């Protein structure tokens, strides 16, 4: 299941990358108050016609090894559970378990 979710998320990421510039331009044009009303309206409509999965808010940072959607360590892109295991075994550079 987790792998399926990761694949879905990956597709969303690719879509978001593809439509990023277009989305940004439409958004900027629809927010520009100097433009005539019809033009802003047209760009707002175009913005709404983009694929839904191309929005960056649909992208979720997931663990690349288990697919866990929450508590993902961004630097290593893995979940806290995997991170703990790897950190205590030592393959992560510069990470050391300490206690005091």
């Amino acid at each position, binding site marked *: 299941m987790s792998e399926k979710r990761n694949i879905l*998320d990956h597709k969303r*990421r690719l879509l*978001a*990358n593809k439509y990023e510039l277009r989305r*940004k331009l439409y*958004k*900027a044009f629809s*927010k520009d108050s100097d433009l005539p009303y019809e033009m802003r309206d047209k760009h707002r409509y175009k913005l709404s016609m983009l694929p839904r999965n191309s929005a*960056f808010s649909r*992208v979720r940072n997931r663990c690349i090894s288990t697919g866990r959607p929450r508590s993902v360590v961004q630097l290593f892109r893995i979940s806290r559970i995997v991170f703990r295991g790897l950190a205590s075994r030592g393959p992560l550079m510069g990470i050391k378990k300490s206690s005091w």
Partner: protein
Amino acid sequence: MSLKSLLTAAALQGVAEARARIFGHVLNPTGKRSPHKILRKKLIGDKVAQWYPYDIKNDDPLVLAREEKQRLAKLEMLKRRGKGAPKKGQGKRAFSDAGIVAH
């Protein structure tokens, strides 16, 4: 007094303009809504798209073929035990009220 304040205002405006020119800012003293806020952000798409590392497994047709064979073997085994997936329209929902109620 009024002359002095005029001069101060002009000087301040000049300073603000010069500062904006040097640091590449956009002056918007009236606080009007502008698209600049959106357009000045960096493009993050490439970075976002590289979150998942590429799996080298997909380059090797042998590994892919083996996995496909394993998958088919598992399905075959399930089917022989009578635990395989039902045909379309022959599932659990087709014979219960739940499927009708849900719609």
